[in-house]
């Protein structure tokens, strides 16, 4: 229990990066075609330009500043 409380300072990273990772996995499955879009019950669903791997890479690259912020925060909190 004490170890859990000591480690609770890392929970914001688990929450943030866990959620981020989940979206990236869904994105990869979508782009690879392993995840069909469900249109049950939708009235005339809109057509979207399909995402490509390059789109996904550019979207991830837009998050590089965020990764840097997270890395700095992680280093600071680990050293405390």
């Amino acid at each position, binding site marked *: 229990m004490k170890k859990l409380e000591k480690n609770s300072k890392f929970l*914001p990273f688990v*929450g943030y990066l866990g959620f981020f990772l989940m979206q990236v996995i869904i994105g990869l499955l979508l782009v690879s075609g392993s995840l069909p879009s469900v249109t049950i019950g939708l*009235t005339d669903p809109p057509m*979207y330009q399909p995402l490509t791997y390059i789109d996904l890479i550019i979207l*991830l690259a837009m998050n590089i500043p965020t990764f840097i*912020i997270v890395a700095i925060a992680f280093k600071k909190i680990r050293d405390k």
Partner: protein
Amino acid sequence: MADYDPLFYEKLFNFIKYLDSFSLRNITEIVTYFLVALLIYHGYKKYGKKKIALFFLGGFLLTGVEENFMVIQGYFYLFGGPTYYYDYHSYLFWIGAIPIVVLCAWFLLTYSSFQIAEMVVSNESNKALLKKLLLAGWMGTSIDFVIDPIIIRRYGWIWLNAKENAVWFLQVPVTNFIGFFLLVASFNYYFTWYWEKYTCRHDTWSSIKTNGVYFILVLLPLLFVIGIIIICSILFTPLKGIDFSWWPWLN
């Protein structure tokens, strides 16, 4: 042309709309609830039960009102036509027209972004709060850059704005990202102000009164964000209809 669910209004107040089948999107919903529970535990350990409860419920109220207002006013054509809606078949639990997981995800991003920003920015630094708010706003929005283009292609929610009425990024209105940044920053500012300034000045008030004021004033950030979005929509008028769906250098 895409349109609202045929039973949109009939099912508006149902806590559970449709339960077609258990799918991957329901698993991601449950994982999100789990991550939110972890963050609530973190807040409980760090701040105590009252502060984290106020943060969670305040955010829940703010986004619940904001999102329901945006979807329902679009359905009734109150301010210029349809906006967007969440697919009634895609989520387990609902409050009005909004899945509860969306409100939880908003809490997850707002809370975790600000916590990480607090670790980076020292309290002794100049304009520490402003730096934290900007960092938290950016972190929340940068995840949104990834979420929205993916989820709309899974029909988790559907934008109904006419193309000529907005500026788009990968078929998502740009004002969505501006609004997200402002909501994260302004709610965190409001909460910090309330907790550090307001409650100190009114410590003789009963708890019910101070908490009641909190839940009323929490709508101030919402009014601020709506005001900025309206201004942005006006400023973007010459650009409306543009869609940055394909990267120019790839064409």
